[in-house]
């Protein structure tokens, strides 16, 4: 009977494609929007992800994220270094600055000052040039996505001069970095140089980046640093999470994406529900005849379930493929740099599709189950 059910479904091409479209559309909308959402809020942690060598981030107790921080006095560095279990500790400066481009435009940038000696604080890889270039005076390294904001596509920025706080800066390399949430241009330079680029008061040390000694657990070390220095210390994972939470709490992004995902779900219910009900209504005579002939309700239920499963699996597959195609086709766009589909997302849309089909299938099925077999003689 399942075979007959499938043939009934595919035999009605308009409704079959309508159902597929509804499911595929919902899946696409939900999967794609959730994917963008997750990737976007993860950008809140990009500052942390870009420095994978730091096990612990130490900061003023009121600092919240890589971008929302209150600088500390430079003495904090030595206090952190004296805590047992600290293998190394380096200064890290993060501040906003304005840059005047060659065209004379003023642009906001983030300036990141990395440790002069070790260059810890730079992204792991360079897109062009070597990290050595920072040894030259006035040298800055720009992030790759930021490059596309300052310069035309395909332009090599190496050698370009910028004016940072009335100081001359020369771009000497391009870092392969995860873009920040705002995709703001980021300029990396040595800590000592950064102090000149960023106007400010006595306290300039945004963070102390700490490497744990072998065998020392980051969480334990962070607690110990806080206990001994009174500073806030977060492990890499905790601080990444702080950055993400900050975006979730302080922007309308979760609400906006939530609304779109909800719409995807509702549109799915509407299209699939209507088409399914129309399909069942068109076939109600046949279902009635089957019931009279001797097909019991359990078998009818199985028939409709098979129809739903067929539409669901194909439509869902198309929707996920569509998302993959979308992410893939935009992968060269700097805004979408590094976007991936977290494994939870397809599972969530699968659950949504299952709910849509169970709900609409159940509503459509009720009509069949309610049909009296005697109705076939009418």
């Amino acid at each position, binding site marked *: 009977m399942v075979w007959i059910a499938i*043939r009934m479904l595919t035999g009605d091409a308009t409704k079959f494609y309508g159902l597929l479209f509804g499911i595929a559309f919902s899946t696409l909308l939900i999967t794609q929007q959730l994917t963008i959402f997750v990737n976007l809020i993860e950008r809140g942690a990009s500052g942390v992800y870009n420095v994978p060598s730091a096990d612990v981030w130490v900061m003023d107790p009121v600092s919240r994220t890589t971008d929302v921080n209150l600088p500390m006095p430079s003495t904090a560095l030595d206090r952190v270094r004296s805590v047992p279990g600290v293998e190394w500790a380096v200064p890290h400066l993060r501040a906003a600055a304005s840059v005047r481009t060659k065209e004379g435009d003023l642009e906001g940038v983030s300036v990141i000052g990395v440790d002069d000696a070790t260059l810890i604080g730079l992204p792991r890889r360079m897109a062009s040039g070597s990290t050595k270039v920072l040894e030259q005076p006035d040298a800055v390294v720009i992030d790759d996505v930021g490059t596309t904001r300052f310069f035309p596509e395909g332009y090599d920025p190496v050698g370009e001069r910028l004016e940072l706080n009335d100081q001359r800066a020369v771009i000497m390399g391009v870092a392969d970095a995860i873009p920040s949430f705002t995709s703001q241009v980021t300029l990396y330079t040595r800590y000592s140089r950064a102090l000149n680029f960023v106007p400010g008061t006595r306290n300039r040390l945004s963070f102390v980046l700490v490497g744990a000694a072998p065998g020392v657990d980051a969480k334990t070390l962070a607690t110990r640093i806080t206990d001994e220095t009174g500073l806030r210390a977060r492990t890499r994972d905790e601080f990444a999470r702080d950055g993400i939470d900050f975006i979730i709490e302080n922007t309308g992004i979760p609400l906006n994406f939530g609304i779109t995902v909800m719409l995807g779900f509702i549109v799915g219910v509407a299209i699939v529900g209507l088409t399914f009900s129309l399909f069942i209504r068109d076939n109600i005579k046949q279902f009635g005849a089957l019931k009279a002939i001797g097909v019991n309700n359990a078998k009818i239920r199985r028939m409709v379930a098979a129809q739903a499963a067929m539409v669901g699996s194909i439509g869902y597959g198309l929707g996920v493929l569509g998302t993959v195609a979308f992410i893939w086709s935009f992968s060269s766009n700097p805004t979408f740099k590094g976007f991936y589909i977290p494994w939870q997302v397809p599972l969530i849309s699968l659950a949504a599709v299952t709910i849509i089909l169970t709900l609409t299938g159940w509503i459509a099925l009720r009509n069949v189950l309610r049909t009296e*077999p005697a109705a076939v003689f009418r």
Partner: protein
Amino acid sequence: MSDVAPFAPGDPATAIATRGVVRDFTAGQQTIRVLHGIDLDVRAGELTYLVGESGSGKTTLISIMCGILWPTEGEVRLFGTDIYNLSDNELVDFRLRNVGFIFQQYNLIPAIDAAANAAVPLIAQGVDRGEARARATELLAALNIGDQADKLPSQLSGGQQQRVAIARALVHQPRLIVCDEPTAALDARSGRRVMDLLREVALADDRSVIIVTHDNRIFDLADRILVLEDGRITHDGRDMPKDY
């Protein structure tokens, strides 16, 4: 109707027996009694006509007799089984094994071909699809439309569709075949041919065939004619009453 004998359990000649069958329909506040105590015995191997004016209760009666409509009161025995005492699923299964249906609008499934349509009762019984199809095709050949087995219902003429519907009613060799207005959609000649066919194929193995019809062109083919008037049987005989 008081002279009807009580049930004779075990009488193999009795296909259908109804006792005191009453059916009410409720429409809004009103309850209308459509059947007023029908007592009837239908023997196996007979072609029975049920005739009467529109609204007299023919469809209601035939539906109750074949197990698709519950009577408000009374008892129906099909081949000795008190069918309305069965559970829902048992009754569905009973129909699947014992009753063949021919509907006025055929109700073929548009998406599957003639052979598959004719094979539906076997498939529903769980018979292997290939075997079900083979048996259905054989029957279509016996009904002279063997060459149409691979066509979809929409590619068949009305008469051909009717034959597919007949094949579907016979393919699982049910002991009772019920038809509501099987010839209404056909011209006189086709209608007669269908009735001849039913006589020939259906009655061959001592089956019972009950046909609801208005079609006075084919009255001469019946073994027995029952006339229903306002929910009561007012005539029972081999021929139509003179004044009808």
